[in-house]
């Protein structure tokens, strides 16, 4: 308090000598300080903002880690030729890459249907090999060509071309590298939407907003303090997730940290605007919680957090690219993974900026303080 309020003598004023005198930014500083204290004292906030994203990154990073030598599981239908099939695989030298179980036809098909086996191999009485595979499952298609190759080669096929392969799985092209920027983007969105939207409706419901506007508090200071608290938290969140990716998954950050934080800041402010609009009129926490989820849902799905949005049909790509989280995720990926400059991200920053400004203007028009 002493940093903002200073003792000042004012002999001409009716106030007693030595009265406290508040400066222009005193309200803002205290609002921001109070907000940060409240957040720090709320264990749930610490969990959802800091611990949860890390757990998510850790879990997904482990589940989708690049396995060193992928084995493919196949079922061989029991019959007079089954052992010959296994012998051929054994002779091929690819034994470690193919895991084969010998089963009855019915059991083999059941295992195949459940996804336990990628391929079913059956040899008929004439000695002809039959593959049962599912063209819709990439691993099934792969398995078929791999097993066919192994069997043919083992049976004596001569390959006319001389080929060799080299393995490449560098940091930068793995799933976790794709995932971490997406998680950072999603976290910036989640935290801004909840941190602004939920906090405002909570204060409105508690009549605290009304109590604040009953004082000479500047309303702009209040909104500014909320946004600033988001920025401070954003820096911590981004730093934590990036640091986690670097330390645990040996991720390589190619872009400058400053540019990444700047993109995060523009994202946080953009979503703060969206959050403010979402919370501009709601009177109850329950209704704003629903609204926030409705607003965020399309972005969880379409904006390329967990998988690339290129998978969606071309016709909806313009819609996807107009979403603020898509812009944020793309910008973060380009910077973190490819080292792109801020200037190269200007169109994406524009998308975020437009969302933020338009939502903020609408929110100011509709906002209910009481």
């Amino acid at each position, binding site marked *: *308090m002493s940093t*903002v*309020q200073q003792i000042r003598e004012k002999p001409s*004023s009716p*106030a007693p000598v030595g*009265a*406290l*005198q*508040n400066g222009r930014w*005193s*309200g803002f*500083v*205290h*609002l921001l300080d*109070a907000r940060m*204290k*409240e957040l720090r*004292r*709320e264990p749930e906030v610490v969990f959802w903002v800091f611990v949860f994203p890390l757990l998510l990154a850790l879990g997904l990073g482990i589940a989708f880690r690049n396995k060193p030598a992928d084995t493919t599981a196949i079922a061989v239908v029991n019959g007079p030729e089954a052992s010959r099939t296994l012998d051929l695989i054994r002779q091929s030298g690819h034994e470690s890459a193919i895991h084969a179980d010998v089963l009855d036809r019915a059991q083999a098909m059941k295992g195949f249907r459940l996804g336990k086996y990628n391929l079913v191999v059956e040899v008929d009485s004439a000695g002809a090999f039959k593959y049962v595979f599912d063209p819709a499952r990439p691993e099934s298609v792969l398995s078929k060509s791999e097993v066919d190759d192994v069997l043919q080669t083992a049976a004596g096929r001569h390959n006319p071309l001389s080929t060799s392969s080299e393995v490449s799985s560098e940091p930068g092209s793995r799933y976790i590298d794709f995932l971490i920027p997406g998680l950072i983007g999603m976290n910036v969105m989640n935290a801004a939407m909840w941190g602004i939207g939920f906090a405002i409706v909570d204060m409105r419901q*508690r*009549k*605290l907003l*009304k*109590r*604040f*506007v*009953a*004082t*000479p*508090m*500047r309303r702009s200071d209040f909104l500014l303090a909320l946004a600033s608290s988001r920025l401070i938290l954003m820096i911590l969140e981004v730093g934590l997730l990036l640091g986690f990716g670097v330390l645990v998954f040996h991720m390589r950050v190619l872009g400058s940290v400053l540019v990444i934080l700047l993109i995060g800041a523009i994202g946080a402010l953009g979503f703060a605007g969206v959050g403010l609009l979402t919370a501009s009129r709601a009177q109850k926490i329950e209704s704003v919680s629903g609204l926030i989820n409705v607003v965020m849902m399309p972005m969880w799905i379409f904006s390329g957090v967990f998988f690339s949005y290129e998978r969606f049909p071309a016709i909806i790509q313009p819609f996807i690219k107009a979403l603020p989280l898509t812009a944020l995720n793309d910008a973060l990926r380009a910077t973190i993974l490819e080292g792109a400059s801020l200037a190269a991200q200007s169109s994406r920053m524009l998308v975020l900026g437009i969302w933020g400004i338009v939502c903020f203007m609408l929110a100011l028009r509709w906002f209910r303080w*009481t």
Partner: protein
Amino acid sequence: MPVAIECRDLRKTYEGKVEAVRGLNLRIETGECFGLLGPNGAGKTTTIEILEGLLQATSGYVSIFGHTWQENDRELREWLGISLQETRLSEKLSVRETIELFASFYREPRPTDEVLDQLQLREKADAWVGKLSGGQRQRLAVATALVGNPRILFLDEPTTGLDPQSRRQLWDIIRGFQQHGGTVLLTTHYMDEAERLCDRLAIVDHGQIIAEGTPEDLIARLGGHHVVEFEASNNHSAAAERWRGLPGVEGVRQDDGLVCLTVREPHRTIPALLDAVEGQGGQLEHLTTRQASLEDVFVKLTGRHLREE
């Protein structure tokens, strides 16, 4: 004395149908403690929130020290300390932090320690708001209003739900503010609060003032300062006229089998009453006398009790 708060022909209609305030006039002098007394739903909160500049009136004129809310909102707010009917302050902030937060909004606030002492919150200064009792929370709410060094204190139902000791503590604080030259406007549905605290009050019902004056004035308008309440076995409807004929009786009211007489001199009325009951072969089942209160004024004016509904 200059006028602190003035409103003329104040009206507020919610969503075009509910008329919460229907043509209300008030003139509150500087240094006065003025009370709006009325039952729940009478329009007290709507009125005080319009005066506080938190609610837009449908029509009418409001001024605070001669300034309207349209003139300079922020400047006016420097002069006002407001405690709303129900504010849940942040539970995870301490008492001191909460007061300092509110102090930071004012140009020349009072020192936090001084306010803590005045509101007897010193030993709770570092406790979180969530850990406070009802009385302490209410004192904190008043502390956030007083820290801005206001000229007018607005209190909406300041003691509702508080225990008697906490209520008296708050009354002392309000009186202390007034003794230092402050003006107070409060709403209450407690008649004892209005009687003890207010220099003048307005009784509000259905969005209108139905009586206004000092508490003594209002009671005096009943005609008598004392109330004699009794139950008699031979009390029937025709008896009312007989009770009115007793010496010193100014008013008769039947209340659920109970007869209430407002009287000037109980020592003359009571012997006559005893004779009258006995003379008609009846029996007195219950008899009390007490000072007339604002409750009696309200019942006389509206036929209802303050705490009904």
